[in-house]
């Protein structure tokens, strides 16, 4: 296990002062804060101002058939998608995880490309694999799957072997080539 990261209590206090009470929890020394979708952009831009200058990752979890409510947080139970923003500060080495929950249909959050340029491709990947729209993204295209692909493969209702797309190509035989 890694050494315990620096405490983020000061940040949590500042967040509480600015945005009221946001549910948060700690697991293995990692602090997670749940932010409602409507306030996500404000909270993230506030955190960027407070020194979280490195956006480590944006990813998503599809809780379609999760056994229990995610992360002991009763407030988030019932939501389908949980976005994960991993933030870090290069100056103080603090780390903070921000969770934003969204739901079908049309799961949408506001893009953070204007805050961190790193978000550009990370958000495109989440759109590609989970189908979550990022409002205000400058170039929201598929990143890894072909343009003509229709499904979002990392959703839990998409099978591991796919729906036969991988077999859908012309066959070149020895005689023809």
């Amino acid at each position, binding site marked *: *296990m*890694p*050494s315990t*990261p620096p405490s983020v209590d000061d940040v949590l206090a500042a967040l509480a002062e600015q945005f009221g009470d946001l549910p948060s929890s700690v*697991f*293995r020394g*990692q602090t*997670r804060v749940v932010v409602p979708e409507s306030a996500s952009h404000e909270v993230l831009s506030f955190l960027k101002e407070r020194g979280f*200058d*490195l*956006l*480590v*990752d944006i*990813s998503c*979890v*599809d809780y379609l058939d*999760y*056994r*229990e409510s*995610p*992360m*002991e947080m009763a407030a988030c139970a019932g939501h389908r998608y949980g976005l*994960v923003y*991993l933030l870090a500060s*290069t100056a103080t*080495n603090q780390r903070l*995880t921000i969770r934003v929950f969204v739901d079908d249909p049309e799961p949408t959050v506001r893009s953070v490309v204007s805050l*961190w*340029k*790193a978000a*550009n*491709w*990370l958000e495109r*990947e989440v759109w590609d*694999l989970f189908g979550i729209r990022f409002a205000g993204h*400058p*170039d929201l*295209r*598929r*990143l*890894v*799957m*072909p*343009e*003509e692909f229709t499904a979002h*493969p*990392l959703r839990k209702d998409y099978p*591991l072997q796919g729906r036969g797309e991988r077999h*859908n*190509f012309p066959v070149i035989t020895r005689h023809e080539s």
Partner: protein
Amino acid sequence: MSIAPPRFESVEIPEAATRSEDYLWTLNFGPQHPATHTTLRLVLKLEGERVVDALPEMGYLHSGFEKIGEHLTYNQYVTVTDRMNYISPMANNVAWHHAVETLLGIELTPRCKVIRTIIAELARISDHLLCNGAVGLDTGAFTFFLYAFYQREVIYDIFETLCGARFTNSYTRVGGLSQDMTPLVIEKIRSFVKTFPKTIDDMERLLTRNRIFVDRTKGVGVLSTEEAISRGATGPVARASGVTRDLRRDEPYLAYADYDFQICCASAGDCYARYLVRMQEMRESLKIVAQALENIPEGPINVGIDQRTALPTKQQVYSTIEGTISHFELSMSNRGFEVPCEESYAAIEAPNGELGFYLAGDGNETAYRARCRPPSVLHYALFPHLIRGHTLSDVVAVLGSLNIIAAELDR
């Protein structure tokens, strides 16, 4: 299905470029091209020989690693991580099980920590060797590449003696390792530590002050400190731009806190600086290996029976009741080990940058979600920013210095 035509509407083109738009021509680079090393695709907009804009495209090796992570157990998935950054599989093994052990809350034995540190640093050396060797190859220094590849074969040989596989190792296990390090391996690493500095001196003499190489890399692909942070660069790419961030020092994991080593940084931020940082990091890694090798603690490599993750030894299975029960439970498909219904993120300083896994456990032996945070994606996204205004021949130098591995990029 056909190759999708490039789309430029959404990409910012500098004002000077839009005026002479009519004279621009488009060059498709990849996905099968020797200088892309693997399967990258670039669509370049050229004005004469000058690159006005570049549109990188990826996904030509997307194989659903994250989806498959939801169907393999924590021990099985290590074979898939081998194939992620296949230049340094050992570093991926360590990163994956580091994340799993963080989720499970396992504290490793001291011997295991030191062995993992040694193999992670050897993996870093072999990665940097190939990366710098490829930069040399692309800028015309073939001999340099052969020097680098020869040393990689030596490291392959060490890994083969260690775990039986020369290339895709799958060496780590949850809470331990697949095999212990034998005296023969230690002897081989010791002789590597002795001989490698001479090779690296030779390599530096070949290239570091070589006029052609310096002219082709100095001032090419400059990345400023602010841009590096904003665009999420990590590892040698960020350190060459003056970001003093290295997880080995900032969040010491494994046994790094016990060793004396320097964080290598540069301020220029160009291809030459990235080359220098990698060369210097190899020397620092060698220092860590040398220190660790002489002080490997005695003791078991796997965590104890009470942790219920690693298989107990034969001795324990046959002579203690705890060992028998633990062995039985771990072997049963419906038992396995306990995983909390929780989520955690843990990262290591991989050769390429911060390589982390965000894991969601749901009580099963299989991850509910295994997200990999790959450094290559963010580095490849840097490319248009770095290449603007340089010439076509600089494309290979910049690509090589970013060390983009397609399997890690696309997963």
